[in-house]
């Protein structure tokens, strides 16, 4: 891969920082976009020192969709690769009780990411090159009682990415959907996760890096998740509705 510029949105997350290290190790310049981006100064210095690339920090709030164009124009250059790592799980019980809380989960996982990826897609289409990566979730493959608000928003994002890929495939713009499964991150810090099914952020980063190079479409970080989701998707609804997965 030639030296490219990679934009990471939601840059404070463990997965985004792992991605920043992986792409910088490959010699690429990095744009880190997040709320309170000044708090990422240590990470900027670290990545620049380790890999000798340029890292820039950019203020970005995915929920403020009105300033997306402004945000893109403020970047020192339109990136070659843009990855949206933003996600917010929330508490399912609270989302059931309070429609505002549910709306925040939906906006953070679907509306916001879709809006910024759409804006970037138009720029990439105009230029005739680029790769867009959306970090979605296996939770979006089928709604379950324990997290369907989050899952439905991720389902929306997955469908959006699929449509975007379909639209842009003739325009030399590539779209990747990542379905990580469980990952050891801040989001899951207090959850007991099955070791065999759970990836480290660096494994997610390696998968995404390879997927960008090889122009893959849909990426499961741990292959076992592909099998699990085939099974879960194919359980008849009459049975599925009574399960407790």
């Amino acid at each position, binding site marked *: 891969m030639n030296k490219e510029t990679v934009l990471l949105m939601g840059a404070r997350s463990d997965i985004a920082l792992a991605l920043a290290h992986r792409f910088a190790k490959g010699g690429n310049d990095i744009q880190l976009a997040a709320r309170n981006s000044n708090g990422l100064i*240590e*990470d900027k*210095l*670290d990545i620049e*020192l*380790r*890999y000798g690339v340029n890292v820039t920090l950019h203020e970005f709030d995915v929920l403020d969709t009105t300033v997306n164009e402004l945000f893109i124009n403020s970047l020192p250059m339109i990136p070659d690769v843009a990855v949206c790592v933003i996600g917010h799980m929330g508490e399912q019980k609270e989302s059931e009780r309070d429609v505002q809380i549910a709306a925040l989960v939906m906006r953070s996982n679907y509306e916001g990411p879709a809006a910024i990826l759409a804006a970037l897609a138009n720029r990439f289409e105009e230029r005739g090159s680029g790769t867009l990566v959306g970090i979605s979730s296996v939770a979006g493959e089928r709604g379950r009682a324990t997290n369907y608000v989050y899952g439905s928003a991720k389902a929306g994002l997955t469908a959006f990415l699929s449509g975007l890929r379909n639209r842009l495939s003739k325009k030399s713009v590539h779209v990747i959907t990542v379905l990580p499964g469980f990952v050891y991150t*801040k989001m899951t810090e207090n959850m007991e996760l099955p070791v065999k099914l759970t990836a480290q952020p660096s494994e997610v980063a390696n998968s995404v890096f390879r997927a960008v190079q090889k122009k893959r479409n849909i990426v499961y970080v741990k292959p076992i998740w592909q099998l699990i989701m085939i099974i879960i998707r194919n359980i008849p609804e009459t049975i599925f509705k009574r399960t407790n997965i």
Partner: protein
Amino acid sequence: MNLSGWGRYPRIDAKLSAPRDLATLRANVHKGNAIARGNGRAYGDSAVSTQNTIHMKHFNRMLGFDTQLGQLVAESGVLLADIIDAFLPRGWFPYVTPGTKFVTLGGLIAADVHGKNHHKDGSFAKCVDWIELLTCEGDFKRCSANENTELFEWTVGGMGLTGVIIRAAIRLRPVSSTWIEQRTMVAENISHAIEIFEKFQDTTYSVAWIDCLQHGNAMGRSLVMLGEHAKAENLPSEYHSELLKIRPKRKLRIPLQFPNWVLNNFSVRVFNALYYSVGKRQSAQKLIDWDSYFYPLDTILDWNKIYGRRGFAQYQCVIPIQMADEGLRALLSTISGAGIGSFLAVLKRFGTQESKFSFPMEGYTLALDLPVNTKTLALMEQLDTITLQYGGRFYLAKDSRMSRFTFQSSEPRATAYSQYRSEQGLNELYCSTQSERLGI
């Protein structure tokens, strides 16, 4: 959760947190009984506290490098391996390095580690310009040889008991290639080995492998390995295009725990093969890459599993220079007489060192790995007595089983350290299972 050091002995049920920011770190420390933990490579329980072990893995960023001074500023959770990865290709190498690169900067400072160059360059303290740590007022204090001097001197080698090291500035060593010129010499017994060490005091790196199986005249027969960073002009021309390139090495994993006898037999066979082949040529000289020279065991990612389920202990003591020959003889004859099976030990000459609580003193240090069982635990007690008898002391980064009595008898400096800790209120916030066992 179950925590232990690299020796996997003892295993302790301990509470572990991994704060991501200073505010959380401070709040966690204020719960008391805190000890910072890096990559868990101390062998015993130095970085374990049942109530409050604090993992520093999220403080792992390098913050600046001054190419004039060769000075790196980094957070304490940065691995030495990452420092080498980033800076060796630019011509810089750690000033002092222990035998593994999978250690954190905080751990290097807290244990004031030594390398094969201690006789010439001193311990890790020598390359530490300043340290910033969280002490007891919940403040971040910078300390150095000129600022908060007392805190600095107790922190380097203080086993994490003066506070949590957050960041530090260290100096690296300029090198012109990644290669080491190694010369191996045969020593027929312990006195001969000492003679070689004394004769080659000007060589930057020196270390010996001792065959602990030998008795009598051959007791302490060993291979003394001397090393220098290879200068570009001394390297064959085919090396010149890639003097500083790091070559990726294949890493091995140990798939299962080995029965206890495997390592001992294997290691001695390797030793014998080398011993005779080197002996035939008198002294063997060769070029060896930095990774194989400094970190031979790092290639096997989890070699601690070799010792089986019960884990192992590393025994490391130092005998002061005046008593070295006699003291080492007493230690070696006890080891070879114990009938515990055969194994290797490592011998190293220390140069002079004045410090508040660090392990090294001018003399000879002996280190050996032992599987943990009743026999070896008894042997280590015997070795403790001999070390005390010859005025030696023990390396806390390796210790997992020493008694309080042994430690206090070996360490006249312990009282002053405990006093300092209580004066500063540090004993109310910081402790490890080890510090409680030893009464620090």
